[in-house]
């Protein structure tokens, strides 16, 4: 079957499904990533209150601080979708502005995570201190790694647009980056609720 080479959003690709295979693959990847994070979240919920020794979640979590982090990531989702809207109307300047804004917000979130990890570490919660520490750092660490990869993707798109490699015909590239970034945000929505707001009694 003939493969589409470049497909703008809303136009049928020359595939069996009429959909671009790259976009199909991205959704498939995100579906698999749901399983990835689902297993880590289940493990965290299993282990968070089965500790022989502290420190414990209630000793460490700073909900106001984490709420601000959540707000930052939510805002980055807005700037990301505004970047997509910009390239769809061929406004490359706005695209670059919103891409940089999203990357900066992502870096802000990562800085907050780094601060939180450092604070927890200095308070005695390490990767091997107790089951809570192991499961918390693995879960949030992998989420942070996903955010870092997302920032690299965003900066790559920005660089490509600066060098003229990203044109208004390349909305799919920004859309795929946006799908990944929004997924990272929705994982944090789940983590924020299950890990931070619903603490063990």
């Amino acid at each position, binding site marked *: 079957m003939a493969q589409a080479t470049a497909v703008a959003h809303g136009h049928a690709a020359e595939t069996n499904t009429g959909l671009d295979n790259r976009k199909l693959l991205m959704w498939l990847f995100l579906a*698999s990533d*749901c399983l990835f994070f689902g297993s880590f979240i289940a493990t965290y*919920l299993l282990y968070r209150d089965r500790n022989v020794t502290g420190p414990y979640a209630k000793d460490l979590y700073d909900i106001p601080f984490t709420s601000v982090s*959540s707000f930052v990531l939510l805002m980055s989702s*807005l700037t990301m979708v505004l970047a997509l809207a910009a390239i769809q109307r061929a406004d490359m300047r706005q695209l670059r502005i919103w891409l940089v804004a999203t990357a900066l917000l992502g870096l802000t979130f990562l800085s907050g995570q780094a601060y939180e990890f450092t604070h927890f570490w200095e308070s005695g919660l390490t990767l091997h201190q107790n089951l809570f520490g192991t499961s918390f750092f693995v879960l949030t660490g992998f989420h942070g790694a996903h955010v870092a990869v997302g920032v690299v993707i965003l900066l790559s798109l920005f660089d490509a647009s600066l060098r003229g490699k990203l044109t208004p015909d390349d909305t799919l590239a920004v859309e795929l980056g946006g799908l990944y970034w929004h997924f990272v945000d*929705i994982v944090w929505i789940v983590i*924020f*609720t299950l890990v931070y707001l619903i603490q063990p009694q």
Partner: protein
Amino acid sequence: MAFIGAIGLLLAFTLFAVPAEEAEGGAKRVAVRRVGHPDPAEYVVIFLVLVFITAVEVALYYVEDFPRKGMIAVLLLLSGAKFASVVGWYMHLKFDSKLFTYLFVGGLMLALAVFTVVIATLQAGLV
């Protein structure tokens, strides 16, 4: 409790169900629901709704007399609504081909099933 969140998600996706329009001509194609995109103002409105819901969640955390089971149920429903909003509008699932929905929701349901089995079997709990 995990099922409450799953039900919330399913309800949200049900609300997104829009009669699909068949693509014209050629080989059988998966129907695309809607060609248009939300405008930036709509995205900002969605963002404000997400922020409001987050504020409600955080406020609920600090209410001391709220029954724990009720609080967990409400928090799961609220986060489910946020999840569905980002997936539906920001990720455009509401406006895109149903095949993407099947793929993503299929993976999500599988993840929820594994999650529920692990929690139930090994007796971890939210409550």
